């Protein structure tokens, strides 16, 4: 038949199956961990950091990616933001790849493909992870697994499952992963049992803070907290993972990547046969102008001030923000110089490269600090010009050992077992204390007066549940600042409005566009369901409360 012509450079559905090809579907599902972009980044920097008290949007001005400006200022946030739709869609692409792989795996027996169970565990881990991210962004999401036929996708509402049922679905994926993944992985990029335990702990922790329909935290479920503790114990006690000796090692490229604190990370690469390398495209905008482009993701003055420490090395919980941190006069937690670039200080530990005020694009609007964790030294071969942007292939850690420690500590405190949490928090602080080796100028002097004290009950603090809770939350902020979690923490704790309104009250003296900003309770805890998706669902999806 002269009209028979096959597709070129593509495969038909009869050509892809079988044990030989199934690894390809698994690999593609992992690959989607890095298939994001700066206006819908999987690191969630605009939604976790810029939307919180940790960071300003940055860039050339408020109009530069204006939707993020609106998200930052809680004004004019509409379901029509293309960035939200793109993020939603890209997460579902990742989910669909996991589902496709699960379907391909289901066609094989364990005889044909001995790794079947392990790979299924990996796929469910990845799917659980993507749903987790969607869940903290949008609260109510359509849940689709590999058993759903194509024709049914549009009949599944985002409110088909309750808030708690959604958490259970996510938890079930991680539980399956725990049951099937090995304790030691053959390939460094894959998920193992401990990663799944950590993510299940995180899921149970979020789930424990029960919310009503208006996003108010109404109860903290102790049963879930107990689970957090036991899951965290598995990771903390039985795994080969541990804290890095120096905080810095988590944010350095090359040999530092996949260190002992990195339980699960996105594996980026360069010089790998792709156009520019498989770079961290989500975070490319964070490079300051002196090194590249475009100076987004700027630490807030409030965050800078939060690193100030008292004479005994503890946070200045109540007075930290009354005046701006003065490096010459104040004691600071050394994590500030791992997290935040300050004019005159070293850029990424390079004694020959001092961060300059002139590297800032709009200092009048966004101040003079820059974010360090996602950045690399310009000398790194992993630093790639993707004109006009600059990406890098340094891995991004998704689950860090320190996180598991503080989840456990948080659960213990909420369970009233704050005494047990003290040691965990102090270990984090001790590591911070010890993380000053790379913070010396060429002349041997430290960049700041580093002073971190540990909490000693009855000596420098009164370790009550309330105090422990305050200390834990402070510790999380300092430890994970600019890593994409802050606003989600605030929502989990039910203190987004009070924290942000207090922040705006003072920060608007420094940042004029915060004038009038305020969080609306019962709306701003979550982002709106993208209007396009509601339209595609023909009104089946329900918009989040308040929008």
């Amino acid at each position, binding site marked *: 038949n*002269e*009209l028979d*012509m096959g*597709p*070129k*450079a*593509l*495969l*038909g*559905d009869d050509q892809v199956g079988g044990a030989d*090809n199934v*690894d*390809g579907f*698994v*690999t593609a599902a992992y*690959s989607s961990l*890095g298939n*994001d972009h700066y206006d819908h980044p999987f690191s969630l920097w605009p939604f976790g950091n810029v939307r919180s008290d940790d960071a300003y949007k940055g860039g*050339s*001005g*408020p*109009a*530069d990616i204006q939707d993020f400006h*609106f998200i930052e200022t809680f*004004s004019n946030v509409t379901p029509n933001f293309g960035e939200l739709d*793109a993020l939603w869609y890209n997460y*579902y692409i*990742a989910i*669909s*790849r996991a*589902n*496709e792989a699960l379907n391909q795996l289901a066609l094989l027996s364990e005889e044909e493909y001995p790794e079947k169970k392990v790979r299924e565990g990996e796929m469910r881990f990845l799917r659980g992870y993507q749903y987790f991210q969607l869940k903290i962004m949008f609260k109510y999401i*359509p849940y*689709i697994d590999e058993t759903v036929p194509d024709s049914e996708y*549009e009949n599944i509402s985002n409110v088909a499952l309750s808030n708690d049922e959604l958490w259970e679905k996510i938890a079930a994926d991680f539980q399956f992963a725990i049951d099937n993944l090995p304790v030691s992985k053959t*390939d*460094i*990029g894959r998920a193992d049992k401990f990663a799944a335990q950590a993510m299940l702990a995180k899921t149970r922790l979020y789930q424990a803070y029960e919310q009503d329909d208006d996003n108010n935290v109404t109860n903290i479920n102790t049963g879930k907290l107990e689970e957090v503790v036991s899951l965290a114990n598995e990771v903390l006690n039985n795994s080969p993972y541990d804290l890095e000796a120096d905080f810095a090692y988590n944010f350095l490229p090359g040999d530092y*990547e*996949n260190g002992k604190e990195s339980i699960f990370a996105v*594996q980026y*690469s360069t010089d*790998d046969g*792709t*156009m520019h390398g498989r770079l961290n495209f989500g975070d490319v905008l964070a490079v300051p102008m*002196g090194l590249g482009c475009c100076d987004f993701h700027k630490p807030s003055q409030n965050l800078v001030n939060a690193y100030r420490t008292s004479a005994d090395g503890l946070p200045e919980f109540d007075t930290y923000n009354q005046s701006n941190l003065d490096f010459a006069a104040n004691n600071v937690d050394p994590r500030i110089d791992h997290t935040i670039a300050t004019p005159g200080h070293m850029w990424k530990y390079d004694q020959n490269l001092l961060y300059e005020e002139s590297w800032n*694009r*709009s200092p*009048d*609007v966004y101040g003079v600090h820059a974010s360090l964790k996602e950045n690399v030294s310009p000398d790194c071969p*992993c630093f790639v*010009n993707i*004109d*006009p942007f600059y990406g890098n292939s340094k891995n991004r850690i998704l689950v860090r050992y320190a996180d598991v420690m503080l989840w456990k500590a948080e659960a213990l405190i909420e369970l009233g077992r704050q005494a047990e949490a003290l040691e965990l928090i102090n270990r984090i602080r001790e590591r911070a204390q010890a993380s000053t080796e790379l913070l010396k100028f060429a002349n041997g002097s430290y960049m700041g007066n580093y002073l971190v004290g540990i909490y000693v009950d009855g000596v420098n603090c009164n370790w009550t549940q309330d105090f422990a809770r305050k200390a834990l939350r402070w510790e999380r902020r300092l430890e994970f600042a600019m890593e994409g979690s802050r606003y989600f923490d605030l929502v989990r704790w039910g203190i987004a409005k009070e924290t942000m309104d207090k922040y705006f009250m003072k920060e608007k003296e420094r940042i*004029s*566009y915060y004038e009038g900003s305020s969080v609306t309770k019962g709306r701003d805890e979550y982002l709106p369901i*993208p209007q396009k*998706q509601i339209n*595609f669902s*023909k009104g089946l999806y329900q918009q989040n409360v308040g929008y």
Partner: protein
Amino acid sequence: VPLHALAQTINVSGKVTMVNSDEGIPGVSVVEKGSVNGTVTDINGQYTFEVSATGTIQFSFVGFKTQEIPVNGLSSVNVVMEEDFQQLDQVVVTGYQSQRKADLTGAVSVIDVDEIVSTPSANPIKSLQGHVPGMFVTSDGSPSGSGTTIRIRGIGTLNNNDPLYVIDGVPTKAGMHELNPNDIESIQVLKDASSASIYGSRAANGVIIVTTKKGKKGKIQVNLNAYSNISWYDNKIDVMNAEQYGSALWRSLVNTGTDPNSNNLSYQFDWNGDLANPSLNKILVPKFLDANQTMKASDTDWFDEVSQTSVSQSYDLSVSNGTDKGSYLFSLGYLDNQGIIKTTEFTRVSARMNSNYELADGKVVIGENFSFNQTNEVNIPGGVMDGAVRAVPLIPVHTVDGIGWGGPVGGMNDRQNPVRILQNNKQNDYDYIRLFGNFFVDVEPVKNLKFRSSLGIDYGIYDALNSQLSYSSGYLKNETNMVTNNHSSNKKIVWSNTLSYEYEVDNHRFDIMAGSEFYKQKDESFWASAQDFAVEDEDYMYLDAATGKKDNGGSAAEYALMSYFGKMNYVYNDKYLASATLRYDGSSRFGNNNQYGLFPAFSVGWRINQEDFIKDNLKSVSNLKLRFGWGKTGNQEIDNNATYSLYQTNYGGGDPTWRSPNGTAYDMYGQGTGTLPSGYSVVQTGNDDLKWETTIQTNLGIDFGLFDQKLFGGVDYFFKSTKDILILPGYIGAIGEGGSRWVNGASMENEGLEVLVGYRGSLKEEFKFEIAANFATYSNKITKLPLAVVNDYGGNGSDDNILNRPINSMYGYVADGLFRTQEELDASAEQPGKGLGRIRFADLDNNGVVDDADRTWIGNPHPDFTYGLNISAEFKGFDLTMFFQGIAGIDVINDMKRQGDFWSVDDAGSNKGTRLLNAWTPENSNSSIPALTNTDANWEGRFSTYYVENGGYMKLRTAQLGYSFPKSVIDRLKLSKLRLYVSGQNLWTIKSKKFTGLDPENPSFGYPNPVMITTGVNVAF
């Protein structure tokens, strides 16, 4: 007795001339009526042949009235030919055959090719703009004219709306700018389905039939045409200079309550420091923008820097001849069009050889029409027009050394210096070689039974060597240089066979035709790139010289069509006309379930002027014809692979600069580099049930002519409905990857009216004139959409959608003026960010809040009507042509307003248009331009009526004055024609007062339309 003795033959000779001239007409057919005996006139219009002494000689020539003279034993017969304005005997090509114009029953527009050639353009189709009612041409000013789009009778489908071109029987969808306009003999536009459906599956958007010139019997003809023109950019966007930019910056910052001296755009202000009552004394800029003192603060006019007055030229030579044994035509053309944007240029070398040979006493004719075209173009690279608006005037083009590039610093936008983009791109031309034509054999074994076999080829080879140079331009820099080679080829062949038979008995005339056609297209491409060249020299930068990363890729695509068709025409008594066609098309693009589609059509005509009651009573009526047609056409413009479920390996995932990659490779082993494991992703979901998209069109037309065709015209009404429109609908995000699936879904209707009226007249013999006007209107409406995509084309997502509205209707907010007083502000609905001098958006649902629910339908991008007016006159060797073209009642989106009216709707670190200098302030409270602000807190960037403007215009497209030298002069020069002319294009524009931009034809950032002055010469000998 020898037979010949019975037939008394005598030798007759004579000369054929035109009215009022003793100039001979070469190539006139001189035939003894009722026989095959005949000849043609020679170069001087003279003939001689043997003819029966009692016979009648018939003199015929296209464009002239046929004359019959009885021989009556005369040995010398001289004839004066009269021009035939009726042109009803004119033969037009209408699809695998030709017909007398008088017998046409469909809506067919026959183009006056002379009018087209008088508008110099690289793309002959662009020159049709405004000439054909119902054919809507939009174009930009790019030197190749390749950005021209044609829409015949509205928008018929949601996918490709381009018409089908059939050049000498070879179908093609694109690349008309590769054709030499001077080679064109005729253009016919088949607008309705009854005439187009013979082309079946590709005819739904109309068919444009082009035939190229052939040699004419008579004598060797040599034609030489040359012109040269200059063009310039007349309607440059008015952007701010350095001083104006500073004052607008100051204003926006004080309006926002920010210290204006805290900006990072290199400006400092001497002002009173009172935010409540600000006043500006002086604007200060540093001598240098950068610490290294390489960039002097300047006052660059970026539009001047990117544009140029360009010079273009065209030369065309053709030689043709025809004898009893065949004819040939050879032509050679050269065109060099410089663009009005620096470095852009289009050149074309075209050669054509059309020939045919008559064998076996003319019973067999073999021949070919073949062209070789080489085009070369430097396109406008991305970011130039937009960059010329945005680049801050303080930035110098070059650094102080005159070599390095100026570029943005500090808070300025991250866009490139547009001059650098142009200059670093100037070597990046592409070459396209196109071999196009057909080889045919015509056999007439029995009188009136004709067999034709034609093999058409369309073979294109594209080559581009693209070098990307390293640069440093302000804070933008890239040290990597790179070369990319692109090569692609597309091979199309079409083999058609037709058998036709004509039969005439008494007053009945029949012709019947049947045929088959096979079409196949294969496209292949590959590219290779390499980085790191030690020297950035054009002669050095080839892949072999690279030392860095190398990459490559390639793919192919293929499809085929198999078709069977038939046609029957019937004419009774030259009064009643009928025609029917049927086509059966199969396409490889459809699944097995619906591979073939059937496309029938019929039409009837009534030549009322042939009726006695007209002939007897209304002698002034020279033509009156009613036409009715109905037909079905198809569309298969979908992806070649549309029916398949597909998977791909997408190792790299595409260019990640402006969108997320969708790669399938992953560094599973944590090595950070090296070859990665890669997998598969789903591309799309197949659909075995895909079937042809079909359009049914009904046409009712009337043609008229009065006073011996001095007044002439026609009116056509059409109704066109398309169903099963092939769409690739967007899909719910939860599906993730692979949700793309081609389906038959939507339906659409177009209804319209086309009118053409003309008058030819003369005052005395020396002054002749012609006025022809055309007018067309259509309305479009979507009548059905699958539920899955009903919200894809605007609307609120629930109950308000595009159904029963024109496609591409605009949906948005209503901008209801500015807030001018506190009372207005207090009385208005809740609207985050509102304030004095800010846009008030209408609270359409009156619920006290301006939100998504307050959007409505705010624009229709379909014109109310389009029109053209052509005026030509001749007087004693002078000829004058003026052509006006316009559209009315069209809504366009004036994107420039985002830059021209606001400080922060687009990014604030960019230059803007001067309109915003008149922005609202308490002192300038009557302005309709919102107050300047450093943050778009009122969200004025939302799509609203503020950006929708009336894009109607009328343009004087062409005005041409020519002078043909009198015979006395050209005889001395041994020429048969010498004409000089000067013409202008786009000389004058009238636009709506409501349009705030410069060129409503080009409201965004397309290639600007130039003003052009041409001088040229036409020579024949």
